[in-house]
Each structure stands twice: as structure tokens, then as C-alpha cells.
């Protein structure tokens, strides 16, 4: 699916990530943890080709990210659902249109028949016509998740998806992600919420990765 081989990255100053080697196997569930500023978001951006590595190689669906054209990147993003902490919606469009946006830009708007079921699944069936600014933090996160999976992607990447949520809402979102994983989707969640990770590990075999000293390591038994 997505593989990092000796990947390094810097924003022009010192190196943020160094010699990262990792492979996200199909159907796997990973957490990526580490202190703020450690490079979790950068790692995710490398995984969906918003950033290109300054060293090493990132392969997305067996293609070298550095060799991908802009259209290749767009097509790969239709197979990778991304949930941002700040969600990033088009505020002038109702929720249902925002959720269907990946289908719209792929000229597959006609495939949006299961939208109601999807919105019901994330508990937003009654808010289909609401505008994004009218939603609470938790509702926005669940809407972002719905948008991320509407194309039935192979991989779901979530960047601090529970950052602004209370514990109950965090658990609800985690449950949705676990369900997706059981459907065969590959999940990678960047988070610093250890309780969330412990909760997930009680439900399934998730691997926990930690960014430390610019490298990604498998976290120990302290979790």
C-alpha cells in the first residue's frame, strides 16, 4: 500500500524525519504517536504525497511519489481517505455535498446513492443540509471521516482526529475506524491520545509507532 524506505524530510532547516523505513500492509491498523512537532503530520503528508521526501523513497500503491505527476497524485488520493484535525470543508456547501465531494470531483456524483446510509452510519443523517460552520467539533470530525471513506479508499489516514473531541465522541470515532478496519481498510491514526490507543488495542491488534529523535520506531510495552 504505502511504503517508506530510508525516508528523510526537512522543511529547509534541520531534518524533521530521518531514515524512516516502514510499510503499511493491507488491512493493518497503525497508530503514530509522538510529542507535538515531532513530525506526525509531516509523516502523513508524505504518505498522501502532499510533501515529497528530501531523502529516500515513498511508494504509494507501488509508485515512487517523486515520479508521480499531479494527476497521478490526484488519482492516488481517491484511494486514500484523509481526516484532518481541522477537517477542511467547503463552508458554502451543505454537509451532504461536502461529504460527496470526492465523488463529485471524480465525476462519479451518480454513485452517491448510499449517502444517507453513510451519514446515518456516522450519526449525521439529520444534519445532511447543515452548513459546516453550524456543526460541532465532533460532528465535523465524523463528517470528515464520512468524506474520507465515501470513495471506499484502500487507506484511511487520520491526523489527530480526536484532538478536539471529548472522550465519548473520541470513542465513537474510534469505533467507526475500527469498523472500517474490519471491512479491510488500512488505517493509520496520528495521535498523542494514549487512552485512545489503549482502548483500540483492547479491541484489535493495532501496531503503535512512535516518532522519536526523527525516527519512527515501534513503541514498547509501556502502552
Amino acid at each position, binding site marked *: 500500500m504505502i511504503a517508506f524506505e530510508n525516508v528523510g524530510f526537512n522543511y529547509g532547516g534541520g531534518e524533521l524525519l530521518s531514515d524512516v523505513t516502514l510499510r503499511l500492509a493491507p488491512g493493518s491498523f497503525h497508530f503514530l504517536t509522538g510529542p507535538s512537532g515531532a513530525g506526525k503530520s509531516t509523516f502523513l503528508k508524505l504518505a498522501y*504525497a*502532499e*510533501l*515529497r521526501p528530501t531523502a529516500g523513497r515513498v511508494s504509494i500503491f507501488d509508485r515512487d511519489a517523486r515520479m508521480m505527476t*499531479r*494527476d497521478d*497524485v*490526484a*488519482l492516488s*488520493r*481517491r484511494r486514500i481517505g*484523509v481526516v*484532518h484535525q481541522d477537517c*477542511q*470543508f*467547503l463552508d*458554502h*456547501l451543505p454537509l451532504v*455535498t461536502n461529504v460527496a*465531494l*470526492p465523488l*463529485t*470531483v*471524480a*465525476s462519479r*456524483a451518480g454513485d452517491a446513492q448510499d449517502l444517507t446510509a453513510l451519514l446515518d452510519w456516522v450519526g449525521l443523517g439529520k444534519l445532511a443540509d447543515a452548513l459546516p460552520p453550524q456543526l460541532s467539533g465532533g460532528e465535523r470530525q465524523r463528517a470528515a471521516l464520512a*468524506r474520507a471513506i465515501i*470513495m471506499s479508499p484502500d487507506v484511511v489516514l487520520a491526523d489527530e482526529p480526536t484532538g478536539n473531541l471529548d472522550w465519548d465522541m473520541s470513542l465513537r470515532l474510534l469505533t467507526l475506524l475500527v469498523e472500517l478496519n474490519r471491512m479491510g481498510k488500512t488505517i493509520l491514526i496520528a495521535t498523542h491520545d494514549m487512552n485512545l490507543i489503549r482502548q483500540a488495542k483492547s479491541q484489535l491488534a493495532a501496531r503503535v509507532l512512535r516518532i522519536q529523535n526523527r525516527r519512527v520506531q515501534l513503541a514498547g510495552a509501556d502502552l
Partner: protein
Amino acid sequence: MKFALPALLAPDRQADRVVPPSGFTAQLTLFTAAAMAFLAVFALALSLASGRLADRWASALAGTATIRISAPPEQLDTQVAAVLALLATTPGIDTARALDTEEQRALLEPWFGPDLPVEALPLPRLIELTEARPGYDSEGLRLRLAAEAPGAVLDDHTRWRRPMAQAAERLRLLGALSLILIAGSTAAMITLAANSALSANLPVIRVLRLVGAKDAYIVRAFVRRFTLRALSGAAIGTVLAMTLVALLPRADEAGAFLTGLGFQGFGWLLPLLLPPVVAVLAFAATRAAAFRTLKGLT
């Protein structure tokens, strides 16, 4: 990455909704296109009128010539008769006649008044001739005149015709240059408006890229909007300007030298080309601006 202009104009409600309506840039594009089309109609009218003027001046002076005979009074009639006889046997001359005293007085009246004693003045005699097609050999005629009537000078109006035709031709070029400048200004202003709209919508573009939109999809959403606005604005400006041109007073009625700034015959169809031309300009300008903006985003 390619998309055709006709396909672009086909309605696409989904793509239209994705980019939020931007009031200021919408009005700016509409106004710019309308104003530029309005000016372009007048530049076109000026250019066409100059062309007609050049043709009219050229044809008015072409086909006629004057022979001026300056000689001592006792030889004047002899030389006039000799020249007329010579002209009668010259191929390419249709008619030739000597102007009488009254006609010469009428020619001089604007400068000297009606009481000029033409008979008492040593004025040269004038012979007016008209060409037959395909015309005469002016150099050959000059040589024959020099031999037969040494005081005769042929004036084929080239001296007058050339600068007037050149002036009208330059006026026509000025009109064409104005059209080019108007086209350039239109493209520049629509580019500015498009850049402004693209900058204002960067968060929208980022979201679209994030969810898998190809550049062509994003570009199409902006280009379609600006092209249609420019087309509408140019249509408004063109219709308004054509109406005003149609209402201009006709210079011919006043007997003026100008033929008027209006369009004639099929010339009325030419301004109708302006809206599609402005739409093509807007299409190209917005497309270039959109791809430039997207190049800076991942």
C-alpha cells in the same frame, strides 16, 4: 489536461457550486469585458471608416489629371490647342477639355473673392483630363508634352493623393492598433480578476486537491465562470456601443468629407465577433492564471 471551449460552456452545476460565488471579481470581469467591448466597437468603427475614407480619397483623385500651361499670352491658345490635339491621339485618355475663364474664376474665388479680374492676370490655362481604363502612360505623355508644348506641365494628382491615402491608412492602422491594445488590456484585467479570485479561493482549491480533484477539474470550474462572465459583459458592451453607433448623425447628410463613423452593410456583422473573441481571451487568460496558481500547490 486539455478541454475544449464548447465543452466548457456546457452547464456543469456540480463544478459551478464547488467554487463559491465571488461578487467583486464577478462584477469586475463583467464590467471590464463590457467596457472593453464598448471601446473595441468604436475602434473597429474608426478602423473601418478610415479604410472607406482612404478608398474614397484615392478614387476621388484617381482617374483625373490636370495639365497646366504657362506660356506668353500670344502663345497660350496655340499651346492649348496643341495639347488638346495631342491628348486626342493619346491612348488611355477618355476626355480632355480646357477650363474656361469662368471655371478658373470659380477655382480662385475661395482665395481671392468674386471680383478678381482673371482676364487681366497672366494665369496659366488648365486642361482637365479623365483617364480611360487601363489608364495612360504618364511618363510618355510628359515627354510628348515637353516636345509639343514646352509650357505644359502634367499634374496627375499623385502629389495630393499619396499623403492623403497615407494619412487614412495610418488612421486605419491606429484603429487596428487600438483593437490590439484593447484585447491586451482585456486579457490583463481578466487575469488580475482571475488571480484575485484564485487567491481568495486557495482554501477551496486545497480541499479539492485533498479529495482527489485533478488540476483540469479545478481549472475548469474557474475558467468556465470567467469565460461566461466575459462573454456576457462583452455582449452587453457590444450591443450598447452598436446602438450608439447606429444613432450617430450621418456625416454624408451634412455634405462633409468624412463618410461617418458608422458601419455599412456587412460591416455591421463584424462587432458581433467581439463577444466570442473576448470569451476566448478570458478563457486563455484565466486558464493560464489557474494553472500557474495550481503549480504552487501540491
